[in-house]
């Protein structure tokens, strides 16, 4: 029986799970996470939001892209309860999810701070950061 099940409330993964390796276009994102802030890359010309940060807008190809602060709020678009861990470091059950962010983009993150029975489509969520490997603060979401 894992710690997750004992408490009944979904917890962040241990800091030993693999951490992301920032790239040249994503370093600002992880730097912001370390400050406890979620940011996203938006095009100044057409307002489109890049799902993956890059040097140009993925919609209109403008190079005028800039990082914007997110309020860190969203709703639950889809999720899965994982019982077979990807690697042994992951404690099950865990809940990867797609979050519909208030600013109009989607991101993947883990859901914590609720029980499996609490999970509902469109439930309001709030970002929260927890440490993983590579000195990264990883965004998770809990019920708002």
């Amino acid at each position: 029986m894992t710690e997750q099940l004992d408490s009944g409330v979904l917890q962040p993964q241990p800091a030993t799970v693999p951490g992301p390796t920032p790239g040249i276009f994503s370093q600002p994102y992880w730097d912001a996470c370390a400050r406890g802030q979620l940011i996203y890359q938006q095009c100044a010309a057409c307002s489109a939001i890049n799902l993956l940060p890059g040097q140009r807008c993925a919609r209109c190809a403008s190079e005028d892209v800039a990082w914007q602060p997110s309020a860190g709020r969203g709703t639950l678009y889809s999720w899965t309860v994982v019982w077979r861990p990807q690697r042994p470091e992951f404690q099950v059950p865990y809940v990867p999810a797609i979050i519909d962010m208030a600013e109009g983009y989607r991101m993947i993150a883990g859901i914590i701070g609720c029980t499996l029975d609490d999970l509902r489509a469109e439930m309001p969520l709030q970002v929260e950061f927890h440490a993983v490997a590579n000195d990264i603060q990883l965004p998770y979401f809990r019920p708002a």
Partner: protein
Amino acid sequence: MRTSRPATPTLSDVSHPYRNVAIAGVFNTVQARSLPGHSSLSIAIEAAHGALADAGLTVHDVDGLAGQFASEMGMMLGRGPVSRKLTSLGIPAIIDAAAMIALGECEVVVAAAGGAGIYTERSSTAPWTRPTNEFVASYGLFTAAEFALIARRHMVMYGTTEQQLATVAATIRNNGHVNPGAVFSGKGPFTADDVLASRMVADPFHLLDCSMVSEGGCALVLVHADRVKDLRTPPAWILGAAGDLYGPAYQVAPSFDLGGRGEFGPNGVVGRRAAQISLRMGGLRVDDVDVGEFYDPFSFEIIRQLEAFGFCGEGEGGAFVDDGNIGPGGRLPVTTDGGTMSFSHAGINAQQFQRVIRGVEQIRGTCQTMQVPDAHVALCTNGGAGALFTDVMVIGKERP
């Protein structure tokens, strides 16, 4: 200003692009949970020889190589100089092989694939299922979880049930159960309740909703139509082929309504455009398809593809399955060899080719089990919405 895309050429205006391309040989090696003594390359080479023998040809006839290990095979088959294409994956590699012939570069092209000895660290999911992308790696995603995110959203939108997913899995696993060549031959039969009783992997997918991992090789031989008279077996013909892509697999949220260019809809129906192009290329409608050799990484993918290709309406895939349409004698029997759930799933490449190989066997009428009577048109697929791509190839009995 051009306001619409140019129409795909049809039989009425030009000769069919694959008119001179015949699928002449297909072969599956022994498929098993493990094949000690083999590497991915060695089992792919066994498959290449097998497919050539099936066609009544030998390596001395080969002047083109495509698919996984195309470069290595130049040396291992003692060939040279030969033409070579580097696309490794599934239907796009078969399209490469067909193009080598259609464009006049080659007469006999082998496309082979194999997987053996690459999944050894069993406490983790298979290595090719673990994304390293920085935005997803730390959340423990792997292929089953990615596809589950799509399935869950479909359940939210349309009320699709776990029971309907389980019906798909039981149908395909039973196709494998009766197939003597399947890795899980004789392991059934299964009911939907058996699937629902298996342990949960990534909700809503139980273990038996998921593809398995095995080892094996397979290959296809494509020849110029002028060589058809020399063949051992009747050829199958490529009536149409195309691919849909929304982005790199396993790097962004694989959401149901990601993207979407106008008429073709979002990622949740990825493959719709590819199927429309493929069928139009052959002058066919969806009603003309006799058998669906669909890629089945997870049970839900079948329901999704039925809707995307237009075999039923959006949100009606679950009911279509409930009504018995995909089983033996149904409107559209699917994945008749047992697919990746029961026949084989040897890594990244081989099981993609195997959907087309089974389509060829259906068109030839040589399936030992689950032969669809008088099958003239098979729609074969690769990929899925959880991976942001779906490739389609339609093959048939008559030369286009």
